[in-house]
């Protein structure tokens, strides 16, 4: 069996669904961020796989993959900083317990 585009897309789709499920079910902010990272990884996989199989000499997708890696790193840095700050103030990072702002 040769590995083709479909295999990559299925793996990416599974990652995406897993990430989406994680984002929707987790109540811990760090858990939600893990879901976000899964979805970002699935989009990187998609971009790179499309590059490889859609024709020779494409690099747009690979460059985009690199950009997404940097974006994910920047986002993780900010997100973890905010989580630490929330933990210091509220002693929890459970998003259901953050209920001061409502309406």
């Amino acid at each position, binding site marked *: 069996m040769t590995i083709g585009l479909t295999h990559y897309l299925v793996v990416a789709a599974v990652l995406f669904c897993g990430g989406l499920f994680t984002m929707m079910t987790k109540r811990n902010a760090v858990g*939600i961020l893990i879901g976000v990272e899964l979805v970002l990884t699935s989009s990187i996989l998609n971009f790179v796989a499309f590059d490889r199989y859609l024709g020779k000499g494409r690099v*747009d997708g690979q460059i985009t993959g690199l950009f997404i890696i940097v974006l994910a790193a920047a986002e993780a840095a900010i997100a973890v900083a*905010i989580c630490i700050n929330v933990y210091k103030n509220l002693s929890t990072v459970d998003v259901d317990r953050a209920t001061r702002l409502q309406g």
Partner: protein
Amino acid sequence: MNSWSSFPIGEHLFLFSPMIALIATMLVIVGAPLVAGRGSRTIAGVAVMGIAAGLVLSIRVAMHVGRGTSGFSLQPAAGLLIVDSVSAAFQIILFLFLAAVTYLWWIGSVETESNAPEFFILLLGSAFGMALMVSSTNLLGIVVAIETASLPSYALVGFDKRDRVAAEASLKYMIFGAVSAAIMLYGASLLYGLVGSLSVVDLAHYSITKFADGPPLLLIVGLLCFMAGIAFKISAVPMHFWCPDAFEGAKIEVTTWLSVVSKAAGLILLARLVSIFSGIIDSPRAMSILGPLAWALGLMAAVTCTVGNFAAYKQVSVKRMLAYSSIAHAGYMMMAATAFLHPATNQYATPASALLIYIVIYLFMNLGAFGVTAMIVWHEGNDRIDSFTGLIRRAPWLAVPMVICLVSLVGLPPLAGFLGKWWILLVLGSTGTPLAWILITVLAINTLISLYFYMRLVVVMTLRDDGRPEVKCPIGGVALVNACAAMLLIMFFFAQPMRAAADRYANSFYSTSSAKITQGDAPASTSIQSLSVSDSDDTLFPIYVQRIPPTQEHR
């Protein structure tokens, strides 16, 4: 073979000089504490110098682009960035509002703030993202711009580390932002796989050919996922939940920044995308995609403004009420964007000019309203509606501009807010489709609903009085809000010149954003030089420079 010899590097650097000024200022602020210490006043002084330099540069760029003779755009077909008169004008507005926000920060926090360098780096960083956002025509460029604008904003919202409410607000904002950015990127990857290119123009062409043979599921999923990121930025339903929380939790100057400039940038981005899609309307099969797109956008707009107005109804926090009101206004502006997608209006660029006018008016209305709220917050320590009781006696110079801004937000004459709504109604009416009439009805009903909660605040300010002491407020802040209120009156009485200017901008916006110029060969009036490093067609993101002819006559 040196194709760089024909590449006007100096001109390109000049056109991006406002953005370069922003980055240079950020770098100087990183280094300044080593030399001059972390004093708030020093850092703010450095930031103000950078903002002033950026303002001068952006005005020069706008004059350069506006003359038309040597204006240019990076062609949307292949380029990552566009510089046209709209993005140049937005940059001027960006720097003016940066100055206004810096001034509000100066009044409110210069004595107490110990982290001024970090604040200004984040503020200027998000400003840079917004400047990129109005210039992007490429899926990657759009994603990077939105993230560049969003990431510093999360930190700005939670900037006061000891404030529990701010921490919670930044957590909610960050989680919504991260989720929508991830979904947006997955959508972008699907679109890239389908289209084989990251350019929005190619995406528009591809969509037309596909929609003609029945709705393609994957393309719709990709477009919807991609739309999630933009909906987050303009806080359209269903991505609006962050907006009231972030606005209430953040410091008032940050709230002003987010509600005013950030949303305007998102809306100009939306307008650019929609105008690229509408540029392909000449194709006979175009209606097959533009119809569904217009309905999707129109329904989103209708739901957005209805949700915003109904939720604003019961708020006791004025910041929160203004947050919901800004959601509602995003809905009105999206209605103007739906009118792009109709052949009747498409050729005249009128929807673009109505949208641009509304954005400018919205900027002044919201800056005025938030400015007054800021001064009440500093005086009273909270932003509940009770704090505004009897404001007409306690501080007439705050109450009068606040009333003007609120009445303008409702959209009653003789204030500029009325003009904005009126022109959106006219544009919608001129398309005459069933969707347009639905939207007109929704807009009219929403204006009536919004009358209630804006007028509630006006009544509290003018008719009630519980003998609170007079409000002491800085003279500069009073001048700022009164200038905003005066602008609203001036814009109403100079409607015709303003309309003419907006039409001129809209025309150039339309000609640079529209995909028409990429169909077939380039028109004779434009000369397109391909500037690729290796002369092959497969180079990464080749840049096309297109000289646009002098400003066309308004049709």
